[in-house]
């Protein structure tokens, strides 16, 4: 096929549009389907603090955005206290500080969290930390002796052997009785967490203590502790009390790592601390909204979301008008719908947003019909074109006024919203309707009116479709793709659906 310049232009526009979208998705991490529903967690932490005369500081570990976890819509309740977010190592700590009144203060934190476990468990490995400081050389040597026989095993298996050993299952051949005795003394002295950490260190497995929550719908008044172990490819989580390894993905929400407590209070006392986790389903878009608002990337700074709220609403609709135009192209040039004027149905569809579809169509039909009767009568007056159209326009405005007054009396907002119907378009429609009825008969006139109403309805349904609104608002470059399709339609020289019927009376073949 010969390449037409229009086709090349359309392809270029499509490529441009998709390149921008891909850039946003791949580099700026935009959601592919902004309007798609997504399961997220809603976390809220509430507590009551009481303090003394000195300044009180409450430090609570809170989740933050990193690979595999997105945190958005963070809300803080701090009352009379100051609030700060601090980074401490791999942790993010919310710090409430200030001098408390005698009755204390209620503090709170809430956020929406999206967890993608398959990415979470692939974070970079940490290096092997030194032994805990209170472990002597002899104890280190003991630990090394105990795990030495598993050194040839792959890390996952080493982890499982150690987990079993702490539960008392050492396997065959069991270690020297002397060592086992020494180990139980060690276990007793340092506690189970340290026992695990020392064994993992001796076996060359990076491990860290994590404090957090069970990832399940729950209300608890404390966090709990587990151990994450790096097995070369990913982190595995171990429940220390039972010595059990969690199935992947582990249903855990870490709040602080590397042994930092999830809650610390200086000069005060925390009562009624409560962590609440609930499931929620939201638009994917909401997880990204705040990040984009804060981002310095060029496309983020030039996002439509940066517009003031009241103009955003206009653009949400405006940006869909080209889709309406595209629909007109399809319905007129491929299907062959007759309509009054080219873009009249699009303007009607926009007006229907205020009146609602049924009232909109009703008012439209009513005005055109009454307008037609008046126009017929006015025809006898032989008015010149411009004054005659002005009379019809005035008539349309009179109708609107009457509708609004009636709407007010009977309490129908839809009738009062009538003022936003495109009155110029209605005026021209009355004129066109009259001319078509005069020239081609009432049937053709009604047929064209029905075609216009159908196209307006289809267009209305499209621009009212919220997911589409959001998608175009997030990716305005889709307009170039729309233009490309319109260009391609401009080169459509095939038959219209209406022609299959129009030429049904053809009989002979050549």
């Amino acid at each position, binding site marked *: 096929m010969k390449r037409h310049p229009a086709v090349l232009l359309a392809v270029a526009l499509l490529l441009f549009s998709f390149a921008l979208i891909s850039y946003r998705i791949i580099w700026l991490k935009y959601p592919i389907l902004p309007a798609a529903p997504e399961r997220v967690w809603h976390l809220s932490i509430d507590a009551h603090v009481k303090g003394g005369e000195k300044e009180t500081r409450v430090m609570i570990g809170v989740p933050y955005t990193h690979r595999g976890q997105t945190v958005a819509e963070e809300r803080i309740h701090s009352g009379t206290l100051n609030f700060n977010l601090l980074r401490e190592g791999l942790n993010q700590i919310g710090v409430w500080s200030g001098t408390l009144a005698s009755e204390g203060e209620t503090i709170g934190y809430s956020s929406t969290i999206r967890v993608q476990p398959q990415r979470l468990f692939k974070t970079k490995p940490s290096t092997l930390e030194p032994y805990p400081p209170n472990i002597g050389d002899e104890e280190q040597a003991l630990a090394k002796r105990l795990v030495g026989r598993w050194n040839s095993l792959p890390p996952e298996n080493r982890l499982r052997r150690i987990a079993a050993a702490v539960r008392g299952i050492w396997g065959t051949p069991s270690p020297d009785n002397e060592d086992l005795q020494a180990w139980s003394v060690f276990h007793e002295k340092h506690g189970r967490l340290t026992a695990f950490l020392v064994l993992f260190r001796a076996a060359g497995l990076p491990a860290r203590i994590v404090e957090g929550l069970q990832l399940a719908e729950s209300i608890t008044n404390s966090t709990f502790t587990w151990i994450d172990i790096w097995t070369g490819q990913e982190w595995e989580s171990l429940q220390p009390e039972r010595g059990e390894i969690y199935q992947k993905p582990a249903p855990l929400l870490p709040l602080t790592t590397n042994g930092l407590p999830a809650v610390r209070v200086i000069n005060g006392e925390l009562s009624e601390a409560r962590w609440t986790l609930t499931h929620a389903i939201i638009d994917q878009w909401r997880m990204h909204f705040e990040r984009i608002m804060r981002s310095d990337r060029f496309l983020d700074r030039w996002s439509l979301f940066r517009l003031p709220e009241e103009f955003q609403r206009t653009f949400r609709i405006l940006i869909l008008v080209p889709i309406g135009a595209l629909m007109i192209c399809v319905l007129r040039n491929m299907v062959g719908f007759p309509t009054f004027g080219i873009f009249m149905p699009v303007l009607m569809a926009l007006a229907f947003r205020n009146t609602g579809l049924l009232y909109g169509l009703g008012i439209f039909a009513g005005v055109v019909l009454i307008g037609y009767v008046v126009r017929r009568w006015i025809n006898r007056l032989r008015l010149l074109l411009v004054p005659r159209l002005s009379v019809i326009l005035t008539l349309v405005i009179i109708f609107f006024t009457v509708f609004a007054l009636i709407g007010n009396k009977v309490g129908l907002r839809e009738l009062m919203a009538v003022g936003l119907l495109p009155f110029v378009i209605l005026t021209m429609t009355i004129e066109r309707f009259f001319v078509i009825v005069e020239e081609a008969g009432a049937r053709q006139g009604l047929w064209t009116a029905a075609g216009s109403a159908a196209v307006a309805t289809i267009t209305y349904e499209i621009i009212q479709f919220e997911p589409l609104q959001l998608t175009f608002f997030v990716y305005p470059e889709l307009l170039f793709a729309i233009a490309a399709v319109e260009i391609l339609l401009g080169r459509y020289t095939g*038959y*219209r659906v209406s022609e299959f019927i129009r030429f049904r009376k053809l009989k002979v*073949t*050549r």
Partner: protein
Amino acid sequence: MIFKTPSWLHQFGLLGMNRRNAEYIMRFNPRSFFPLVDDKFMTKRLAEAYQIPTPLLYHVIEYHGDIAGLEEVVRDHPDFVVKPARGAGGSGIVLITDRQASNLVKPSGEVISWIDLTYHIFDILSGIYSLEGLEDRALIEAFIHPDPVFAAVTYYGVPDIRIVVYRGVPMMGMARLPTRASDGKANLHRGAIGVGINMKEGTTSTAVHRSTIVTHHPDTNCPLTGIQVPYWKEMLHMAARTSEMTGLGYLGVDMLIDKERGPLLLELNARPGLQIQVANQRGLRSRLELIDQAPSGIFISPEERVEWAVSAFAKSEA
């Protein structure tokens, strides 16, 4: 069958609206030439220069003041036609056939006053009937007394002949016969009958009325097929010459047959309709393709183009 499939229509060689617009009108009819055909006054002037006969022009009304001379001009012509120079689809045309006291009589017998006619002309001047609502001129022309050949199949009004011409080659013709429903107008969308014309013989074939095939005129009940169109060859030549005259490659040429003067060019149409295909039961697309493959020598003169067309299209009509 209630409808045809696209492949059937393609096989048939039918020309669709989209293809006509994109491949023929946009390619062969430069926009700058449109005024030549959209304005009947300009068409008339041009036709005179090319010795193509048109209906006699009595008077042109361009300003409101020009109306003063109208009664004087038509004093010796009891019948005349008022038409907007830029009117489309026959709108705004008023036929006057007679006088009754100081009033005017329309073909339907309706009587109107001079004041009524003056207001109608004001409407024309203000652009009510013009294509883009532009200010317009009113033409006062001779009433055509049509050749009686179609008298039996015309309700009232004047039948005309439409020939579609591509690159100067006449492609297809049809007679357009007014009915009661079309109010004496010869436009198919107003309810006139279209009757296909055999290219070689110049005889009428299938007739279409409002998208149904008919054999007899609905008002006069006379048969529509087999009528020998007079001056057929001459009209083919006239149609062929309009391409040199206008520079447009895809044209609908509308002609009347006057009882005394023979064929007259009425108007040209840069966007001729597609219904002619139903009236002829032939597709324009296959003929367009045939013309594009014709030896380049034929495009030199109108005579050669007509000769080529008659022999080339006669095959498909045999």
